[in-house]
């Protein structure tokens, strides 16, 4: 388990997945891989049988979009109708009076201000526990408004890429770790919450609740860059918030779990994934265990679960799955 966590952290910080050594495979996984080699043709038949009735599903995507929109609209409605359910914005809020404070914003304030009052600490710990329970980077795909906009503009990018009008340019994922460290140091050294000045998450959340401003131009610029130059550039390679919540994801019980036995290695999951490096175990012969947990960088968006027609990828809660 510890080895899995170390690998998960390595990928989170920007490392590339690699082919496992022969010694890393469990007996069961080796057996399944061997069976798949032997049964090649028969499995092809099985796959047709298993997947012919499967309809295109958007179950998790739809649930997620509804949750994301509802949560963000609740901030707005709470304020405009003065019903005081969820006051504030994504950086800090009160849910029925309980302090909720975004981990990355809290980190910036703590480093810049170097003075932590009780409410700040309580709110930060509450949100830490919340995202430990609900899957770390699930913050990104289930709550962050920029993620939703980027998901929509990604469709435009993919369309233009199919027409060969634009080309995706890959960045090094280690940039996010570098920026995370630099923004932490900048906050510490300058005493300003430097990252907040450019955080599209904060800007969008405030724009939605308190009205639009010029700062939206920066968000538009990022989106345009993603459409015309690099697919999902901000969330994939740069946003330090993703790393903060990814770190929480190292210890969460909520995962997408992969069962190699059910997998036909079509690779559709990696194609729809924001962070396809976490799905390297779906490549034929890579899974080291019969059941693998997808790593901390996974945003639990469920697109892979939707696209997998043979139930090889599923949401699971460690310790609870038996009971569900």
């Amino acid at each position, binding site marked *: 388990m510890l080895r899995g966590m170390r690998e998960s952290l390595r990928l989170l910080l920007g490392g590339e997945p690699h082919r496992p050594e022969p010694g890393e495979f469990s007996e069961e996984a080796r057996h399944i891989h061997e069976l798949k080699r032997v049964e090649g043709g028969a499995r092809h038949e099985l796959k047709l049988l298993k997947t012919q009735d499967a309809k295109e599903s958007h179950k998790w995507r739809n649930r997620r979009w509804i949750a994301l929109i509802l949560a963000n609209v609740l901030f707005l409605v709470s304020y405009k109708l003065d019903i005081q359910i969820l006051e504030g914005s994504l950086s800090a809020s009160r849910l029925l009076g309980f302090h909720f404070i975004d981990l990355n914003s809290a980190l910036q304030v703590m480093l810049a201000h170097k*003075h932590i009052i009780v409410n700040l600490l309580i709110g930060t710990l509450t949100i830490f526990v919340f995202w430990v329970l609900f899957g770390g980077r699930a913050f990104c795909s289930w709550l962050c408004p920029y993620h939703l906009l980027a998901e929509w503009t990604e469709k435009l990018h993919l369309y233009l890429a199919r027409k060969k009008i634009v080309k995706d340019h890959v960045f090094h994922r280690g940039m996010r770790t570098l920026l995370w460290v630099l923004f932490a140091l900048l906050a510490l050294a300058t005493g300003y919450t430097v990252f*907040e*000045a*450019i955080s599209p998450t904060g800007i969008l959340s405030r724009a939605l609740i308190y009205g639009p401003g010029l700062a939206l131009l920066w968000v538009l610029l990022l989106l345009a860059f993603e459409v015309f130059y690099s697919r999902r550039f901000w969330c994939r390679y740069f946003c330090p918030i993703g790393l903060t919540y990814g770190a929480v994801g190292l210890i969460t019980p909520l995962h997408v779990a992969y069962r190699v036995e059910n997998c036909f290695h079509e690779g559709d999951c990696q194609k729809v994934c924001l962070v396809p490096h976490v799905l390297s175990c779906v490549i034929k012969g890579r899974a080291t265990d019969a059941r693998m947990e997808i790593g901390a960088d996974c945003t639990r968006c469920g697109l892979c679960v939707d696209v997998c027609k043979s139930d090889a990828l599923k949401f699971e809660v460690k310790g609870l799955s038996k009971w569900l």
Partner: protein
Amino acid sequence: MAVPPASKPLPSRHHKEEARRRFLRSALGAGVVLGVSALGYLPVAGASQHRLRPPGALEEDDFLASCIKCGQCVQVCPVEALKLADMVDGYGIGAPYIAPRDQACDFSCDAAQCILACPTGALTYTKPSHMAARGAMRMPGPPILLAKEKDPEPTLNLKERMGVARLARPDLCLARQGKGHKGGAREAGFPGLLRFMDVDRWRPIPLNDHPFDLALCDLCVRACPIKDAISLEKDGDGRMTPVVHEACVGCGVCEMVCPTEPAAIVIDARKGWRA
């Protein structure tokens, strides 16, 4: 199903070239992101923005460091005096300020609800000892809110001022010209709110819904929510002049109600008392 063509290993020269490009692209991208974030320093360095901060705000540097830019203070203000700054404020983006000419803080919340709402202590009743405010910012005593004057606890628990009022354009001042004022305090269509104790103890109303008929304009004195903060006094040249006293907290009500254009009396934001 189409069989994928046997993949040839990429020529290593091409591979190296792509890796080099990716490295350059990544370094450039990170540089641009950092560069853009560094732009946020410009407005601060220029010190062009002397924003009036909400009551209880820490000194500006500490305030910007500790404000988490959530806007909970904005949400509790009954007169919506608090606004969040846009990107032109640099690192002050998302931090609350008051534009007193548009809407002053009239303390119609009877306390300072914004202070109670702040989750990080950027607005606070009691500043940590190592973040003490400048001496001139300290109030001589707890300011008495006229609306609560008859209550057992009539004071606002504020230990520092937000700024201080100043008769910036004495030539425009109606009182100094011996003129009165009739009608709404401000131009038609002005949306600002103010609490008038004689109209509604609990609810602020549009300023212009309360017409005046004054032989000598003393709007800044009569609208001031703080006891003994401002009075009309005979000047050396015999003209009646608004005089600001040390009890002024800098809330900006005088600037908002001043009927001249531009206002004769203004708030010097974040400035201390000069005797």
